[in-house]
């Protein structure tokens, strides 16, 4: 009898809590500027209409490039931002996605746009298996192991004749006229970016995301609170590999050739880390803001200075300055000061 009473009490308490939570969520939703990201997406989807009035391929390329990095940086954010495992080896998944779809395109003529989700899955499976090994250690050791992963992958891809080795693989060039040639990739990347932002939002606000944030603060405490930390972080690694792999697949077809020294370089990984740090690690809008900043910055540098070595040096400088003076990134710093504009609060 007493037990029944207790149960009844417990369920009524749970019910009350649920209703309260819903009320809070509704209030939160009312103050949220959901219209802003939707409006941005709308503008971006309508942007190619400019092509009717002239040739804006460079503008489209910039948006496409930014969107591709937004996809990858948001993907990286799942493991690097939410779970706190800094990976410098994510270029590997970029390459795995790119090569998987690229080989399918080169041998069987299936467009990468169709196989991209599959490429993402392959990258995710690889990520899961790799994560089982490398996520056993954290902190500096993990970062080192991720660099080693990149080096191993580079040697393997350089010597794997089936996929062209160090010479790479050239893919068929699109036969669309120049005005519309970029459009399929443009839409693919913009939609992928929208999907990724939505997905990271859902992940962050799920029980899974809460678990990841808990284990990023203190893994032992998270474990003793009943979180299966091993599974959580490996899954987070696989998920982040999924998005990076998907971006790699479309990027490969867009570029029309695959080569290890384009896909498997540490600069790609470094850019992802840099974007998340500059924008704000662990926030939803951070990687997108970071991607916009870095692409703009890169364009300015390439336009004014050109040389790739200077570019590497400038990237390093921005990274040092960002780390030393804004370790929380644009979004994080503003949020901490309570000055984050409502339109950028996507969390």
């Amino acid at each position, binding site marked *: 009898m007493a037990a029944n009473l207790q149960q009844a009490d417990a369920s009524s308490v749970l019910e009350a809590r649920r209703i309260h939570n819903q009320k809070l969520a509704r209030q939160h939703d009312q103050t949220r500027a959901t219209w802003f990201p939707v409006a941005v997406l709308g503008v971006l989807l309508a942007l190619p209409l400019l092509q009717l009035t002239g040739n804006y391929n460079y503008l489209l390329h910039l948006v496409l490039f930014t969107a591709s990095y937004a996809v990858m940086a948001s993907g990286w954010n799942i493991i690097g931002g939410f779970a*706190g495992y*800094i990976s*410098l080896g994510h270029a590997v998944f970029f390459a795995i996605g790119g090569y998987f779809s690229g080989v399918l395109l080169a041998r069987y003529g299936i467009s990468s746009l169709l196989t991209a989700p599959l490429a993402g899955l392959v990258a995710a499976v690889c990520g899961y298996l790799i994560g089982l*090994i*490398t*996520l*056993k*250690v*954290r*902190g*500096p*050791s*993990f*970062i*080192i*192991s991720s*660099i*080693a*992963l*990149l*080096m*191993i992958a580079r*040697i393997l891809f*350089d*010597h794997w004749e089936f996929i062209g080795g160090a010479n790479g693989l050239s893919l068929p060039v699109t036969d669309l006229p120049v005005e519309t040639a970029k459009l399929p990739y443009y839409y693919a990347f913009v939609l992928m970016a929208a999907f990724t932002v939505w997905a990271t939002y859902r992940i962050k606000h799920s029980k899974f995301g809460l678990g990841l944030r808990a284990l990023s603060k203190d*893994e032992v405490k998270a474990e003793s609170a009943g979180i299966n*930390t*091993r599974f959580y*972080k490996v899954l987070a690694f696989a998920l982040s590999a999924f998005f990076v792999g998907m971006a790699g697949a479309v990027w490969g077809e867009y570029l029309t050739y695959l080569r290890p020294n384009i896909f498997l370089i*540490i*600069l790609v990984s*470094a850019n992802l*880390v840099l974007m998340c*740090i500059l924008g704000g690690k662990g926030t939803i809008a951070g990687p997108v803001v970071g991607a916009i900043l870095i692409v703009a910055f890169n364009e300015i540098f390439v336009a004014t200075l050109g*040389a*790739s*070595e*200077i*570019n*590497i*040096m*400038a*990237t*390093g*400088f921005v*990274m*040092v300055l960002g*780390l*030393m003076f804004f*370790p929380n990134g644009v979004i994080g710093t503003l949020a901490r000061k309570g000055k984050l504009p409502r339109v950028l609060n996507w969390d």
Partner: protein
Amino acid sequence: MTDILQILILGLALGGVIALMGSGLSLVFGVMRIVNLAHPSLIICGAYVSYWAFKLWGLDPIATLPIAALIMAAIGVLLYRLMFESQAKSARYSEMTVLLTFALAMIVEGFLGAAFTNTQRVTSPDYATDAFFIGSLFIPKGQFYAGVVSLAIIGALTLFLNYSRLGYAIRATTQNREAAELLGVNVNLISMVAFAIGIGLAGAAGSLVSFVFSFFPAKQWEWIAMLMSVVVLGGMGSVLGTVVASLLLSVVAAFVGTWVGATWSTMTFFLALFVILLIRPQGLFGEKPELA
């Protein structure tokens, strides 16, 4: 049999150089808990010092070794002051410093690439291409000298750490930072000295590397993984461990290179790193690291 002995000798000679390359890394990690990803790029800086000294004035790389070491040590002090001193209170110290050194590596690579272009360089003193012959065995003089000088420097470092007051302080800081501070060690100063010594060792290693390997600014990425595997296998922070691990791994790499193929010899290091992390993350001589 002579084949095996020959490979063993070549592996050990290279291992000595790699040990010197890794020892600075290990020292800096031990005292400051900084995984210095910029270490290989600073080694390349040292190599350029010796390269230009040889190219312009015909100075022997081994003779310019102290100069390269001193220049790099001074740069180390500067870097410590500018970048790492303020990080000591950061909550995510280890992560922050790894990313900072990573960025530093990119800056140095970019700078060297812009200044000297990314062409392969190597200093070529007479002994670099010469060899001793013992029966049917040959020992390349360059690698032999480099290995001997490396081991001598590491020996001096060990003596310094074990028998000088500054060495005591450095080891105390390695073992327990707070306790050392309580006992009156100026931890900040010791960190700076240790960092300077670590970077100075990178400079010294650079002089030797300049005639043992060919180098170019972007080569650092290959070396990062190689040195990290050595340092991780030896146990982060243990100089002795680094020496043993680098001798071991470079001998294995030499055998792999001869019997399997030259491209796979660097792979030995990377795979070893993975295997060590998998079965013994604390390495041979290390304490248990922060485990997940």
